[in-house]
């Protein structure tokens, strides 16, 4: 029987919501109480029910926890699963992103703070620094965003193992065409309004999230003011923000099967990080960002919370499920592609990451 799980990483632990029908939900947790869970991946490759979590204890530091039973029990490597090599004289601050690779069932990518990319070839048990990005000459000039300086987004390309895209705040988008050995900035068209001289620099953009449409390969990027689409794998970007209530936000999602269907979760402004008009909402486009419409049925008005960059997710059921978590500890689920939402969790700590998947 297929089970939908929604892994909810928060400032103070991990919860997991489960459902057989996406209508009735049971909430389990907390796991890792009092530890921050900033990254989660559900690895369903080869029928697995593996969940990976980037966990950080205020006292005992960051680590990666692994569950092979859908998040019910967890193990941690006795040796450091993910750490910087001695010669870097650098300590891991936080694991921001965990991404199973679509081209190799044993590979998992990790994006971390400080700005670095790691690669696991044993399904996430241990990781090795990707030197090509770490030794990039631009690295000393990558600034930390408000939340820290990290590789927060990793976008592999199915069918092309050599192609990899990462995004970081505030370094921008970088791409590799050789599996991570060499990297080039890939931000043409993305405006960095906060730069004093050149608003279209080669790098330094504050990209918040990038999503790839598995249907047609289009890339969608939410930036610190600016929403963009790329139809050429990130070589160039064009604005798709015109029809949105605001160009600020963190999360962006692309439909796994239908070209042009994309969800954006707008935030009122850089200096007003609340939903537009205090109405928690999702904006949906069916034409690649040319037009947008609000989806808010079941989402609260008079809402002054915020949805962070990884606190939104899709499942791959038909119709697709849409999930989002808020900084005031609510999680909402839609089983009809965003038309109606129901609250599946409340009173949790700040939600940092939401990941949904079908198991079994």
């Amino acid at each position, binding site marked *: 029987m297929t089970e939908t799980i929604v892994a909810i990483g928060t400032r103070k632990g991990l919860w997991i919501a489960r459902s057989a029908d996406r209508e009735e939900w049971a909430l389990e947790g907390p796991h890792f109480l*009092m530890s921050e869970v900033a990254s989660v991946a559900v690895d369903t490759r080869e029928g697995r029910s593996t969940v990976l979590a980037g966990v950080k*204890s*205020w*006292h*005992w*530091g960051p*680590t990666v926890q692994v569950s092979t039973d859908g998040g019910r029990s967890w193990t*941690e*490597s*006795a*040796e*450091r699963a993910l*750490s*910087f090599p*001695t010669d870097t*004289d*650098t*300590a*891991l601050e936080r694991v921001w992103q965990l991404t199973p690779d679509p081209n190799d069932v044993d590979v998992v990518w990790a994006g971390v703070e400080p700005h670095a990319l790691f690669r696991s070839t044993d399904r996430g048990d241990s990781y090795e620094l990707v030197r090509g990005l770490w030794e990039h000459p631009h690295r000393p000039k990558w600034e930390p965003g408000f939340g820290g300086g990290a590789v927060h987004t990793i976008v592999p390309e199915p069918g092309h193992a050599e192609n990899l895209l990462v995004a970081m705040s505030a370094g921008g988008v970088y791409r590799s065409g050789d599996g991570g050995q060499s990297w080039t900035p890939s931000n043409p068209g993305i405006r960095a309004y906060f730069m004093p001289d050149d608003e279209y620099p080669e790098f330094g953009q504050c990209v918040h999230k990038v999503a790839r449409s598995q249907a047609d390969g289009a890339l969608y990027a939410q930036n610190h003011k600016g929403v963009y689409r790329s139809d050429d794998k990130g070589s160039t970007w064009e604005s798709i923000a015109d029809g949105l209530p605001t160009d600020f936000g963190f999360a962006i999602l692309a439909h796994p099967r239908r070209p042009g269907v994309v969800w954006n979760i707008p935030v009122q402004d850089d200096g007003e990080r609340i939903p537009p008009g205090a109405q928690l909402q999702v904006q949906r486009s069916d034409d690649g960002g040319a037009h947008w419409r609000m989806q808010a049925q079941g989402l609260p008005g008079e809402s002054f919370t915020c949805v962070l960059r990884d606190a939104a997710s899709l499942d791959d059921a038909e119709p697709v499920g849409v999930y989002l978590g808020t900084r005031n500890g609510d999680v909402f689920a839609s089983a009809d592609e965003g038309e109606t939402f129901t609250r599946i969790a409340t009173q949790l700590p700040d939600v940092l990451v939401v990941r949904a998947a079908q198991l079994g």
Partner: protein
Amino acid sequence: MPSAPVRVILPGMLRDLVGGLAEIEVESPAESQTVAELLDRAFSGHRILDGKVRDERGQIRRHVKVFVNGEDATRGAGVGAPVPAGARVHIINAVSGG
């Protein structure tokens, strides 16, 4: 004549990781040892503790304290602080967070 061993007392939050073990007894070498050397010896059979107490550079984590005979070594010489034979060393989670 062998030196008196050092007792490393673990905080409650870490004991579950090592089967409920509350303290680790470490033989003292003939010459004096530093906190770093003591922790190397104490954690050699309990590898998971090393990543909890120290980062990969060998530094004591920011919100962890190591007391040697009641003195906070992390406010002094840190991992280079001397540990005399027979010392009682407490590893403590700092009173911090929110």
